[in-house]
């Protein structure tokens, strides 16, 4: 394989405490090495920033829900699809891009790994087929388990070993990565036309509460010693006054300790926290307010937690979530088209287009809350930047979020000049209090690389430039010794990586994608548990009586999973 040397760049790598030091990064046979021969191809990175490839912890990029979003929104492509470039495949879509555009755009931002945020177990084959068709980036997917009938029954009876055996079976059957939990109990309750608004609302029939489900999942996750913690989208998303539910959910981690061999320290990752930090009792500016400080005060002192932001980017986008009742609620707010599906014994999903219009108060307040979270975060290794793509905005807007965080001017300008109700936003959120706060490039690298990889239990694969790591390396047109005076340059530079290596293959050279054919991996967790006859019988029984598919046809077949990379976790040893 070709050798490369990235010469003279300013390296930022929090895993080694390197902050802007001028040094060379050498790449050989797909790995980062100490030195290369004289024949190595030179990439001149003088006056540029060198970081590890980005890692996205939560993004809806593959699967039936994303695909339905594409079919359901032909207008999302109208006049917004760039013409095909000669060496690339067709790119389409704005908020729900086609698989090719998804892979290319992540590469253009210098990202090497993306976690698909919600995989309905029954539809896992579809998820893996789309992962296969997404170029360049490595991916993994989290099966959605917060409303799963098996688990609800095991948790009700406090049978954590049985829950573990079942979760392990699901991870293997779906080639999944971690235990995802969306609106625990609420999505199931919606089957009865109800929802779970607090963590103590009972789920009909199952007679269990969201609190019991979340605690059960934490115990199951730590029993299985999985690389990632449970990944929670809490109850009561998007509603004014929901921050109390959020705090109640976060506090469920108290008393638990992470149990794994992957360096992960948290026991719960709470996703798209922006949607969960609202005070007040209506969306009117006289009532609605930010509670990000209250929530982040708790997150900052609780080491058992990591979060991601879910930043609103003020775009027209497409919301899609396994939180079925929320989407139903949303379509009644904005009167736009809505689609919904129930996934048998497992989960549900809904889709509604949404416009975060800077001319409305509420979009401005949501935008502010999303930025408050990372600015309040004391430990940047536990707070990650996402847009909950495409729910709060498309992922390819990350560079714009970086701009708002790196430059207080960019933020204050927007409040003054683009938000129609900027003054009201200042009154009802904490963004004014943070008006001179900025994050550093080092902190940005923590929030998009090292911290994320650690929280996912993937720090030996991603997010670092240590010798021996897979060579995912991004070179940006930013000189840390001479930071740009115009904040727009941050957005341009982070959105158009100067050079990007994926597994040691030069993917982007001089801003252009030159190669997208490198092998990409599907990362999954091969969880091994002691034999459990009870759970085997339960699975056979449920498939016989309740599922519409036969057990034999349920599991993802080998040919569906593209270039699998299994992380083996054996708790029988």
């Amino acid at each position: 394989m070709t050798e490369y040397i990235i010469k003279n760049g300013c390296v930022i790598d929090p895993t080694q405490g390197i902050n802007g030091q001028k040094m060379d990064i050498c790449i050989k046979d797909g790995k980062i090495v100490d030195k290369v021969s004289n024949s190595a191809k030179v990439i001149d990175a003088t006056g540029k920033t060198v970081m590890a490839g980005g890692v996205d912890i939560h993004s809806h990029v593959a699967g039936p829900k994303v695909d339905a979003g594409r079919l359901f929104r032909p207008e999302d492509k109208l006049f917004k699809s760039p013409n095909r470039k000669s060496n690339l495949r067709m790119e389409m879509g704005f908020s729900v891009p086609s698989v090719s555009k998804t892979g290319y755009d992540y590469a253009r931002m210098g990202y090497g790994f993306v976690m698909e945020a919600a995989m309905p177990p029954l539809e896992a084959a579809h998820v893996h087929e789309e992962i296969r068709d997404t170029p360049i980036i490595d991916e993994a997917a989290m099966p959605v388990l917060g409303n799963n009938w098996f688990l609800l029954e095991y948790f009700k009876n406090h049978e954590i070993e049985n829950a573990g055996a079942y979760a392990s079976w699901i991870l293997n059957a779906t080639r999944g990565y971690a235990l995802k939990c969306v609106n625990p109990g609420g999505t199931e309750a919606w089957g009865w036309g109800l929802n779970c608004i607090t963590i103590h609302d009972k789920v009909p029939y199952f007679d269990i509460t969201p609190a019991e489900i979340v605690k059960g999942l934490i115990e199951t996750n730590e029993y299985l010693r999985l690389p990632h913690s449970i990944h929670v989208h809490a109850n009561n998303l998007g509603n004014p006054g929901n921050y109390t539910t959020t705090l109640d959910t976060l506090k469920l981690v108290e008393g638990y300790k992470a149990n794994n061999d992957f360096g992960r320290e948290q026991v719960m990752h709470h996703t798209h926290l922006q949607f969960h930090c609202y005070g007040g009792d209506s969306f009117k500016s006289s009532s609605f307010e930010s509670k990000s400080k209250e929530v982040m005060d708790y997150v900052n002192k609780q080491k058992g937690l990591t979060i991601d932001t879910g930043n609103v980017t003020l775009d027209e986008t497409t919301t899609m979530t396994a939180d079925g009742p929320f989407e139903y609620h949303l379509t009644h707010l904005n009167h736009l088209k809505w689609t919904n599906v129930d996934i048998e014994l497992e989960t549900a999903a809904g889709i509604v287009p949404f416009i975060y219009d800077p001319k409305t108060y509420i979009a401005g307040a949501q935008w502010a809350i999303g930025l408050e979270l990372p600015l309040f975060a004391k430990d940047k290794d536990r707070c990650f930047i996402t847009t909950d793509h495409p729910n709060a905005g498309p992922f390819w807007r990350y560079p714009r979020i970086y701009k708002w965080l790196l430059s207080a001017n960019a933020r204050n300008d927007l409040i003054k000049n683009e938000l129609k109700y900027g003054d009201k936003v200042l009154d009802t959120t904490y963004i004014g209090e943070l008006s001179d706060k900025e994050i550093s490039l080092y902190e940005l690298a923590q929030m998009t690389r090292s911290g994320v990889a650690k929280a996912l239990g993937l720090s030996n694969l991603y997010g670092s430039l240590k010798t021996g790591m897979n060579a995912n390396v991004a070179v940006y047109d930013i000189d840390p010794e001479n930071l740009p005076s115009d904040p727009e340059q941050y957005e341009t530079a982070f959105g158009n990586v100067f050079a990007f290596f994926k597994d040691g293959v030069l993917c982007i050279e001089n801003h252009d994608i030159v190669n997208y054919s490198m092998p990409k991996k599907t990362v999954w967790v091969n969880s091994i548990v002691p034999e459990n006859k009870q759970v085997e019988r339960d699975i056979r029984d449920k498939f016989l009586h309740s599922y519409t598919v036969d057990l034999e046809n349920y599991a993802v077949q080998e040919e569906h999973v593209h270039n699998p990379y299994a992380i083996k976790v054996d708790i029988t040893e």
Partner: protein
Amino acid sequence: MNTVTITMVKQPQLFLEADLITPDQFAGKSIEAIGAIEISEGKIKYPLASFAKIEGVSGATAAETKIVLNGDLTRVKRIGQQMTAGEIIINSNVDMYTGGWMKGGKITVNGNADSFTGIAMAGGELTINGNCQNHVGSAYRGDWRGMTGGVLRVTGNVGNDIGTFMRGGTIIVGGDAFIHVHTHGEGGTIIVKGNIQARVGGQSVKGDIFVNGKIDFMMPGYKYVEDVEKDVDGVKAVYAHYVGDLGERHPEAKGQKVFTNLYLKK
């Protein structure tokens, strides 16, 4: 105003995608530069001059540019798409999407136009002196933002899905319409001087529909209110006023519930 005359000299084997035939594109360009504008036949792009003879002079701006199209344009789509000013006169039948997304200016078609004429139109005047097919002044598929402004006049008959998701502007049909008129409407005015078979104003929440002929099958969601005298396209007459669609949400404005008004000539 300067005039550019385009005369078709060769027929395409497929259909031409001529979205660049607009005063906005022609303005300030020489005849040679206009001839070099690329139009697509299938996936291959050709210069306009390979299909048409181009004469005249373009204006400095779109508003000062008039385009006259002669010859057989039956296989040409998207003329005047997204135009903002100026004038286009088409002395032929045309294919689909004529005047789609137009924001201003004037298009006159002296012939029939196919489907999607004036789709998502936002302003200007679009006149078809002939018949149209389906989706006249409707929204792009999937979109909830249909026609928002301008006047779209068809002297003859139209097909189905007229003014779907309409939010503003006026559609005037001289002849008959088939089915689905003002479906999902949220504003605007549709006048049909002939008859409509069925499904008028289904799921519509706001807007005005005038029908001078008869509707064979009324939607069950419309309720008769009273007889009123109305001035419709310059002619006064008495209409039976219905409101609907009662099966839909009813937004409030100034303390009053808003409905779609359907006026049926007595």
